[in-house]
């Protein structure tokens, strides 16, 4: 029982990071129709910038400033690349995101270096351990879970309750109508990129003490996050949370029955099965209402 709980915590820790990346995918996808494969790079940049700032600022300030910088960076990407390339097909823009992912990694390699680095633990240190319902875990795990939960709750409020959030949703469900009622869809797309980048950066900061930050960490996270987004159903940020946690839990529990070398296989096998049985994901609507045609 304690053993199962231990696997459970291990699963939801990685799962909640996948979930935040998947939310990032969804925010940009629903606002622009683009699948942003540079999503993992936002996580990496968040961690890297925070680590650099933490050398002369207190950690909470460093994290806040890093999130702000990466948010601006995300907005900048939209303004420089995607706004100008609006007339190109969605497929072109997806390829551009893959190119951007490579460029950002190379830049990070030059700005920082090839070394692995990490933020200090928010509470305690590398060896501290807390008992929760009999399972032992790092206090940082609680930080990760708490942050993910707060992000999800705030995002839900933003989308449902605020004018800005509603406008963003309007852009995704019907861009023409949104434009007709006076919503600046261009700015909404920029904001979506910024929001997505900021969330990624925050995730990058809270996981940095656990999984460490490295210029190459992005693509791996992007693939898992994408899997989580597809599993939940593209275009629905809350479904992404379920998708992310599921991918994390499947990975963790699969280790208890099969050799750990195959845990990625387990996660992707379930993803494939899902695509055969419910191509629109767990919570997506069939017939592709939320899927825009190219």
């Amino acid at each position: 029982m304690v053993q199962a709980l231990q696997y459970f915590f291990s699963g939801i820790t990685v799962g909640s990071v996948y979930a935040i990346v998947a939310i990032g995918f969804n925010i940009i996808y629903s606002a622009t129709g683009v699948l942003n494969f540079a999503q993992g790079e936002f996580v990496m940049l968040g961690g890297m910038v925070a680590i650099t700032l933490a050398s002369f600022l207190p950690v909470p300030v460093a994290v806040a400033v890093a999130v702000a910088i990466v948010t601006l960076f995300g907005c900048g990407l939209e303004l420089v690349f995607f706004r100008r390339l609006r007339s190109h097909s969605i497929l072109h823009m997806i390829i551009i995101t893959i190119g951007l992912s490579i460029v950002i990694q190379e830049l990070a390699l030059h700005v920082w270096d090839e070394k692995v680095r990490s933020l200090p633990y928010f509470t305690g240190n590398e060896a501290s351990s807390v008992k929760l319902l009999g399972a032992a875990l790092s206090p940082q795990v609680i930080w990760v879970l708490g942050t993910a939960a707060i992000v999800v709750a705030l995002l839900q409020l933003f989308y449902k309750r605020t004018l800005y959030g509603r406008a963003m949703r309007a852009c995704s469900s019907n861009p023409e109508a949104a434009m007709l009622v006076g919503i600046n869809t261009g700015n909404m797309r920029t904001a979506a990129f910024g929001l997505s980048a900021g969330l990624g950066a925050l995730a990058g900061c809270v996981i940095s003490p656990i999984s460490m930050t490295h210029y190459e960490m992005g693509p791996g996270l992007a693939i898992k996050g994408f899997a989580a987004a597809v599993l939940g159903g593209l275009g629905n940020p809350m479904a992404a949370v379920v998708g992310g946690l599921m991918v994390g839990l499947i990975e963790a529990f699969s280790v208890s029955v099969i050799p750990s070398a195959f845990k990625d296989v387990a996660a992707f096998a379930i993803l494939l099965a899902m695509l055969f049985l419910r191509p629109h994901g767990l919570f997506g609507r069939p017939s592709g209402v939320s899927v825009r045609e190219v």
Partner: protein
Amino acid sequence: MKEKLMCSIKVAAAACVIGLTGLTANGAESRTIKIGAIFSQTGPASFLGAPEAKTVQMLADQLNAKGGILGRKVEVIIKDSGGSPEKAVSFAKQLIDEERVLAIIGPSTSGETMQIKPLCEENKMILVSCAAAETIVNPLAKYVFKTPQKDSQAVTWIYNTMKDMGISKIAVLSGNDGFGMAGKKQLEDLASAHSIQIVVNEVYDKGATDLTDILTKVKGTPGVQAVVNWSIVPAQSIIAKNMKQIGLNIPLFQSHGFGNLKYVEQAGVAAEGILFPAGRLLVVDELPDNHPQKQVLAAYKRDYETRFKENVSTFGGHAYDAFMVVIEGVKKARSTDRDKVRDAIEQLKGFVGTAGVFNYSPTDHTGLGLDAFEMLTVKNGKFAIYKK
């Protein structure tokens, strides 16, 4: 990247020199002695490749400042493989066919080395690998040498230490790269001879960032007395942290791949008490003055640390040994004829390197004995010799 630029400038300069002298000299032999190097300066194995590349560049500069060898300067052409065997293969081809180097140093990882081993053998190209896996020199290839200690020797040290501590049931974790796979095989093969029982045996991805799931499995298996981790990737630090975090308080043994203080820094206090076999470079200050390696180690440590402002690692040491072995070979052969140099390297005896005292022979292309290792531990964030 500055090094790369410098390299290409040097290549360009060398090309000019060759072009000019070609008119007067016979042109058949270039003025500089070219030595190729393939290191994973970036990528998951950059902990190995970066210090290796720096070391080789530093040694070449030092040698050239003293006038080179046989009256000729040495030019090192360093290629960054990023840890990818495919890139290593194409760089090896480039170094063999286009640059026509005297010898190739590296690659950093066992997986890459195994990919270019047949290529070098076929082209009669001297390869002095900085990777550790036993399979590099066993089966023996005529032109392939290596400088790190053997896996089997590291395993023997670990199992002997376990016997002293009364440990018999262990968990083996390894990375899914060439080094991890080779080490796993040695751990499995030698276990019964040392009456060690492997009760958990897991492989993880070389890019893994969280290993609590595997360690949970270890924790849930009754009777496990110690964990052996075999990899070269940052997972070495992650395992140490995760073990403490989930409350798995049993001894952790690592391979000789742990010999970079960076790993200790990454694991912080969780690294305390980790046991691993390694060469003496990391504990040079603890060595008595009359130790045969003391001088070489102290000089390398001082030069490297003043020039690059970072701690030495055993990996840079492997590159030191590889470069010096080639230079010693040239010195002994009094020629840059590749076959003569190869024969000279094979006959090298009593060469004092960072990993130990090398004695190559036609049947041994590692050249190091069991005494090249020392059991080390982590004490107050520093490496120290383990005392029972």
